[in-house]
């Protein structure tokens, strides 16, 4: 009498224990057991939670199937005098495990769709367009007329994959136009960053593991994804779709800085681009004086 509840409780107890271990040990097990996260971006965190949940179910199925398999080999090994049971099937049992498998999958479907919005939809930024924190506690101190609506502050960066480098084009701020950078993507902490991902040669795939999943860059398409780094830091990643011989060296880093530092970087980058642009223009002008024909050719290229 006392055995039955135990045999029923045991799988649940194992599942609960596994879940507890996975959740408790999530940061430690990132990488070898669970997908990476840790930039504070909700999409990466939620994917990891969803993965951990599937992992719990997977371990139960794995232990069940492999256990029975090995048990059979040991227990039903041929020996003298043993007779094999001549069973051809059992309809009830077969319907049972078909339905059982289906139930697990229905459960996974429901959980996936419950968690999907948190992974897919960009949330509000923690800061406004000028870098001021938005929060309930902050609202009491800051000038209320400055606080943008939650959806207001968002930074859209155009990501362009090229053999073998990532180019980022930033939004125009303070009258500075067409500010761009390569490889290292500097972003403000707490800002929801949306990405428009494209390619102008072959296919690439944008991936920063700690800040969420991949988005392929295909010529002729604009793919979209987002992240929000809530902690400052450097988050490495690299191109995930074979794009040619130097695919392995097409690296990308997201570098999250406090807003002020980020703004300083942005201004510096804009100034450097201006200088380079002017130097190039002067070079072209000088060339035009010296060798007009060649310069005209260079201009039109």
């Amino acid at each position: 009498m006392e055995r039955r509840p135990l045999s029923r409780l045991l799988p649940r107890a194992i599942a609960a224990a596994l879940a507890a271990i996975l959740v408790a040990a999530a940061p430690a097990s990132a990488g070898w057991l669970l997908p990476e996260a840790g930039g504070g971006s909700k999409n990466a965190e939620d994917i990891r939670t969803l993965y951990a949940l599937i992992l719990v179910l997977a371990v139960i199925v794995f232990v069940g199937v492999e256990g029975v398999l090995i048990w059979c080999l040991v227990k039903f090994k041929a020996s003298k005098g043993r007779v094999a049971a001549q069973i051809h099937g059992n309809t009830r049992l077969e319907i049972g495990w078909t339905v059982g498998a289906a139930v697990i999958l229905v459960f996974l479907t429901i959980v996936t769709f419950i968690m999907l919005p948190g992974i897919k939809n960009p949330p509000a930024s923690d800061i406004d367009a000028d870098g001021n924190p938005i929060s309930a506690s902050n609202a009491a101190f800051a000038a209320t007329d400055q606080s943008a609506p939650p959806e207001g502050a968002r930074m859209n960066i155009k990501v362009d994959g090229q053999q073998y480098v990532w180019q980022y084009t930033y939004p125009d701020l303070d009258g500075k136009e067409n500010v761009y950078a390569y490889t290292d993507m500097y972003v403000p902490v707490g800002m929801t960053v949306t990405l428009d991902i494209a390619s102008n040669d072959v296919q690439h795939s944008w991936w920063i593991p700690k800040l969420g999943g991949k988005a392929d860059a295909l010529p002729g398409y604009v793919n979209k994804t987002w992240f929000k780094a809530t902690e400052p830091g450097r988050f490495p990643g690299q191109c995930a779709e074979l794009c040619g011989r130097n695919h392995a060296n097409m690296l990308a880093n997201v570098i999250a800085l406090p807003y002020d530092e980020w703004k300083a970087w942005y201004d510096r980058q804009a100034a450097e681009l201006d200088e380079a642009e002017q130097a190039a223009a002067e070079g072209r002008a000088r060339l035009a004086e010296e060798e007009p024909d060649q310069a005209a050719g260079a201009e039109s290229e």
Partner: protein
Amino acid sequence: MASVDYAARTRPRPQIITGEPRGGEKGWTSWVTTTDHKKIGIMYLWTVAVFFVLGGVEALLIRVQLGAPDNTLISPEKYNQLFTMHGTTMIFLVVVPVWAGLANYLLPLMIGARDVAFPRLNAWSYWMFLFGGIALYASLLWTPPEAGWFSYVPLSTSEYSPSGGQDAWIFMAHLTGLSSMLGAVNFICTIQNMRAPGMGWGRMPLFIWTILIYSYLIVLALSSLTATVTMLLADRHFGTNFFDPTEGGSALLWQHLFWFFGHPEVYIFVLPAFGVFSEVLPVFARKPIFGYKAIAAATAGIAFLGMLVWAHHMFSTPSATIVLAFFMLSSFVIAVPTGVKIFNWLATLWRGTIELRVALLYAVGGIGTFTIGGITGIFLAVFPVDWQLTDTYFVVAHMHYVAFGGSAFAMFAALYYWFPKLSGRMLSESLGKVSFWLTLVGFHTTFLVQHSAGLSGMPRRIYEYSGGTLHVYNLISTVGAFIIALGVLVTIFNVTRSLRSGTKAGPDPWKANTLEWFTTSPPPEHNFDAVPRVRSVEPMKDYRRQVEELTGAEQRFEAGRPMANV
């Protein structure tokens, strides 16, 4: 001298009277000109074995390069060529044609027929397969292809892959595709029309069921591939723009068309493997297969659903959420019939009397390994999770658990099970066990840690990486690859040894259930002198019982149990 047991030798056995009508032709011309399904089957299997070794050597070179961080042993160009050749070889020249070869040999025997429906077409299928393989490998003399085995555009277009290697890849796909399609039509016609009297659909061996479904899948999927690579060929050389977005084409179109072939391809190479499991388990558990109808139905169900899941390879492309959701659900649904098969195999072992022969070990090892690949497939089917996992070593691990665990383990199970029929000689069981354990341990050493490498952010197809934990994972993986190689070498040694000096097998060394064991090993050119009659799904068991009733000679199973108890 005195130890020869003449009584045992003359004991009545269920065997159809067979004899060679002619002396049997010998020499290389008898192979080149043959239309005999058995000779063609053996040529298929030897060709596959050669490509399997070539693909394996490529895999070892890949693993050597990745064994150390920032390794400069192999250049990026050579590395891309290596994994392209490895993937292409293993998919197009090993795991698909191996079943064509085995079915060639066994299909007419298992259904009690004299040959396949179109023997000359059958010979042509083989030669096209061989020339497809040669077309690919001839590129080694110039520049091998380097755009990966799925050759995504625009990387595979003439702008980014100008070398003829890509064209060699296209011709390989054309030739092996046509070979497979003609072979499939041949198998379908043979199965539909040439079964022995009494072999209704419900009495057909499960391996034949999987070959039938495999053939239908080939007709549907390979035709798509052949058209797709022709479009690429036209884009590369004849000025069309199917895949060029600047001219109104679409780069995504390639992925849809390719995976419309590519996913059914997975079932093309894994369903016959399931067929092998379904043949081997009942024989060595001395028990009928559990749920024959459910397994046959699940095979058809998997094939149908397998046509509807292709875009789960494309979850990170720009696609609408509704599309992602559809392909997640269809991929989930396919897990149900796959699970049903695994449960049926477990139930077949349950309460049997299991003889741990090498064929059974490989079958059970294959089921256990494939189960892990099936489970990781669920992770990949959940598209938000797939956004993290796709294009990483997690996927590399997953597909090797499916392809090696499913198809390659079944290949070895089939080798150890049917080798006595094909050659008339037994393989060494002890060498086979050594080979099995090396392969199993080597496999899991190689591929289990690759899940972790992928979770730690290692993408596929990178020729170098920086140190840290990735180095540990990759080093373990490299060591494992060499253990697999050792295991395979032991089997190659076993085969070459047994071909010369193996014990004579006799017609039915395993006391098996199906008709191929009803004739001599190897069978004569015409297979059977008289047409066998079929009264159940296990005709050999019926024949053994009949012989016992007629002669009073006890027909035993291996475990020493008389037939009468069955």
